């Protein structure tokens, strides 16, 4: 059983994402191909919008992969190659949006919520008991006696 689990885990660990990058598209220079893969994993396919261009089977994604490789072969830096595609399709192609005025809420929103929550908790008297605690704290002698009797009865 342990062995089976070990085999399954090994196989799962070896399985990468299913890429659509065709052998015919790949560059012979492994360094450039590695750069292309890294960039391709950050670019959104415009057709299947939640896939990267490396994962997508859409013809447009294939054209973009080829174009990206041509830019790299032509001597573009990673940044220039990405800018080339962003100039055509807008920031929407970036799966990781840049940090700029338009995207401030996106990047800082979670921290804002955290701060607001912290402020809220600081003001919220969480430690103190509910206001009617005082009333329940003091029982009348009759109630004390009734409670004692009830407890005694339960014990038996």
């Amino acid at each position, binding site marked *: 059983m342990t062995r089976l689990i070990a085999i399954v885990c090994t196989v799962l660990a070896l399985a990468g994402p299913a890429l659509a990058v065709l052998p015919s598209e790949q560059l012979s220079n492994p360094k450039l191909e590695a750069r292309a893969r890294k960039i391709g994993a950050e670019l959104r396919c415009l057709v299947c919008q939640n896939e990267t261009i490396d994962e997508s089977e859409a013809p447009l994604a294939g054209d973009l992969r080829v174009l990206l490789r041509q830019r790299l072969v032509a001597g573009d830096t990673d940044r220039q190659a990405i800018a080339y595609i962003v100039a*055509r399709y*807008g920031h929407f192609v970036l799966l990781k949006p840049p940090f700029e005025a338009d995207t401030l809420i996106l990047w800082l929103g979670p921290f804002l919520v955290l701060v607001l929550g912290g402020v809220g908790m600081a003001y919220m008297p969480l430690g103190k008991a509910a206001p009617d605690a005082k009333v329940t704290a003091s029982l009348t002698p009759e109630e004390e006696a009734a409670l004692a009797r009830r407890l005694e009865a339960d014990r038996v």
Partner: protein
Amino acid sequence: MRRLIFLTPIALFAIMVAGFALGLRRDPSLLPSTLIGKPLPRFSLPPVDPKAPGLTSADMTGGGPRLLNVFGSWCVSCRYEHPVLMALKSQGVAIEGLDWRDTRADATRFLAAEGNPYERIGDDEAGRTVIDLGVAAAPETFVVDRQGRVRYKQVGPITPEVWTSTLAPLMARLKSE
């Protein structure tokens, strides 16, 4: 003060729900074009029909405002749009075509059967010009003014409603510019 503390998160949550409710209704395929207000990128494409002229970006300047329609014979929505383009042609609207990832034989057959609404057609078999235009899916139609600048991009087929409510008023305004 205490009430405020309790109500603030609820109010914030309500605002978020309203934001998501609006945001989730938006069509994610309607991407804003990066070309609005800018000149068309330069391109020079061969024709589909060897006897006809091809299409270059220079052809898009001068004259009046014109439409640049990205289509393909393989594109189902383009077939749906086609009768509208034919009707626009008969009204005298200048439409140029950009045939995307198509074979000449298929495009010729498609236009012979359905009619040819285009003044010129550029054959973008490799799909490179279409990428320069930032097109994600056919059909997309650019409204190009006299100076060859892109003024609007219609994503998806031009329906009679789209034409009368959006494109026709825009074309009329560009004509008088």
